């Protein structure tokens, strides 16, 4: 079958009858037999290291977990500098995580219950694959927007019963953070770890309101004179 990778068309052999096969295996095959310069990241081959995220027909996927079919188009992730072929620059990852204070700041001595642990069970499965960033329309127009994964990882600690320092964490995500998100849900659609990132951001908004923060967009644009806007804005 034929697939296109970074604008180059490749004809590859498939092993099964459905003319479908695993994308990462095919990338290895192409690198060995057709184009040895083809560059891509890979690691665990099982969906937990976050190395091999690419776009397939415009949608973010982990190559190792993706079955491809005739005519598929493979491209690097969006909105990051492409170093070569499918390899993007991930250098801003550290900055985002520092800015969002995505770590345990002050450990409390609270007894952690089964319920406490379950609250962050899925949220602590982020693999930093950058798929959510590539699918984010806000980041596409504002590179200062704190990455969806960084907001999620902030939430993972805000929600952690062990964390005794919530205020500074919430403070860290007010500007270019939770209020700038459009809640479009693209991040949820592409997250290979099936994490509800959008829900985490909504939760962070509620938590922020409890801690006295306001939505800055509401303050600047909301008409308080009659409380009714026939245009629905």
């Amino acid at each position, binding site marked *: 079958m034929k697939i296109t990778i970074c604008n180059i068309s490749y004809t590859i052999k498939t092993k099964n009858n459905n003319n479908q096969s695993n994308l990462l295996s095919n990338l290895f095959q192409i690198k060995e037999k057709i184009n040895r310069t083809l560059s891509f990241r890979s690691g665990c*081959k099982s969906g937990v290291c976050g190395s091999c995220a690419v776009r397939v027909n415009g949608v973010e996927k982990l190559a190792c977990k993706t079955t491809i079919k005739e005519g598929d188009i493979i491209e690097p992730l969006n909105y990051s500098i492409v170093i070569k072929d499918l390899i993007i620059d991930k250098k801003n990852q550290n900055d985002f995580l520092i800015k969002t204070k*995505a770590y*345990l700041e002050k450990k409390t001595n609270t007894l952690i219950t089964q319920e406490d642990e379950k609250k962050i*069970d899925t949220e602590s499965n982020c693999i930093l694959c950058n798929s959510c960033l590539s699918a984010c329309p806000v980041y596409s127009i504002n590179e200062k927007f704190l990455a969806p994964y960084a907001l999620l990882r902030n939430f993972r600690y805000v929600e952690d019963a062990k964390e005794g320092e919530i205020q500074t964490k919430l403070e860290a995500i007010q500007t270019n953070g939770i209020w700038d998100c459009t809640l479009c849900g693209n991040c949820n659609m592409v997250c290979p770890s099936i994490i509800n990132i959008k829900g985490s951001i909504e939760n962070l908004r509620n938590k922020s309101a409890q801690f006295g923060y306001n939505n800055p967009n509401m303050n600047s644009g909301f008409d308080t004179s009659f409380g009714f806007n026939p245009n629905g804005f």
Partner: protein
Amino acid sequence: MPCIYDVLIIGSGGAGLSAAIEAKKYSKNVAVVSKTYPTASQTCQAQGGINAVLDTQNTNDSIQSHIDDTIKAANKLGDEKAIRFMCENAKETIQWLDDIGVPFSRNKNNGIAQRNFGGASFARTCYSSDYTGLKILHTLYDTCIQNDIKFFNEYLILSFIKDNETIKGVIVLNIASGKIEQIFAQSIIIASGGYAAIFNQFTTNSTATTGEILSIASEIGCTLENMEFIQFHPTSLKHSKILISESARGEGGYLVDQDGKRFIDELKPRDEVSRAIYTKIQNGESVYLDLRHLGKEKILETMPQEYHLAYQFTGVSLEKDLLEVTPAAHYTMGGIKVNRETQTNIKNLFACGECASSLVHGANRLGGNSLLEIITFGKIAGKNASLSANQSTVFDTSLYTNELENEEKKIKNIYALSNVLNFQTLKKTLGKLLFDSIGLFREEKKLTMLLKTLQGYKNDLEKMGITDKSKVYNTELKEFIEFTHILNLSLTIVKSALHRKESRGAHFRSDFLETNIKYQISTLFTQENEILMVKI
């Protein structure tokens, strides 16, 4: 003048990041250099858990029992003192991880939950569903960010800078830019992981664990120990070799043959279970993991990752269907020889984790003991490297420009190689050869043939080379350098395996079936003496 780091850590897995966090307590400038991004390290694939005796009041378990089980699996090649240290500190290690934020699963009494694992007398494996390694690794990374640890991501180590038997730094290939650079440090910790990925296509490991640092360390005089001891995990998916954790059997899963009959106690040590499975496979039979009796709810609660992996990669629903499995290279017990303080035989050079031979696993490793080892000894290495660094004096980095130029020349030579033979294809061929000849069953004839093949490959290196002549992010260059070291390392493993004329733990010789007291000693490999056997 370039910065001289107090402590430089090579590798960003559980051992490396634990070392970095600990080193930062005693030193200002701590850096981690890694050929991948930190959270892509092999540790993220550890699913099942980490062993520790937490409660001796309400259970029958004891630290002594953990020590005894570990010693038993080590098959008389373990260092009892190192094992005792690791097991006695295990509870504290778990507490440390819990304190930095690792979300361990809880039991009904809100204590840290523990499950059964192979070779363990009691349920003492702590876990975070079946993403234990992933959650530990990410929490360690978050803590490193909090502690302002410097990261050099995607740098391949080319060589060490050593002066007067003291380590001074490393020469690296900045993969993204293609530049050859130097990083200087007073102390260096090697925490680069194991070498199971040399079994290309026959391993549960990441593509990254090619073990080149062991080969490079050996070149500068480090001793390699017990390199022949390689663990084959009993259960990986038939085609992709993706790991299906021991937790599947720990939670009550069965191994059945094609007639649906159980044929071995599933919780025996990994080497015994693997050989039993592979014997059937070699006879043309198939072997399956059967979890159907556990029910979907329990499977999803205790091993969600296995459930999803099985479905995504094979289309099998574990509550309804059997899952075909096969053994695959999983973990390497051998490594750089260190003393109980993680010190190598070179001054200010330390090693910890899977790349090191701390002798806590001996001839075979218990499931759940590897995560425990990397955190325990990662922390020891971090502290000791820092203390050594603090006693060292500033040196003149300009003395080492020759070393840099030499490495630049070597890389230039690689670009100029004839490239008649495709090393990518040979790497795959070698993976199969290694699995066949130095896999679960070994014998002199096959090992000798493999030795010749490896020497042939080495002689042919000049006919290999790279097609990609660019500098920026040249993955072929990186992989070619790795391949040259895979050959060196494989030779070391084969020579070590040939020398050990007995069967012990993970090393099984079809031509020497019995364990021989004569070999109740370590196999050491040095550049000067090649193979040497010494008492532990």
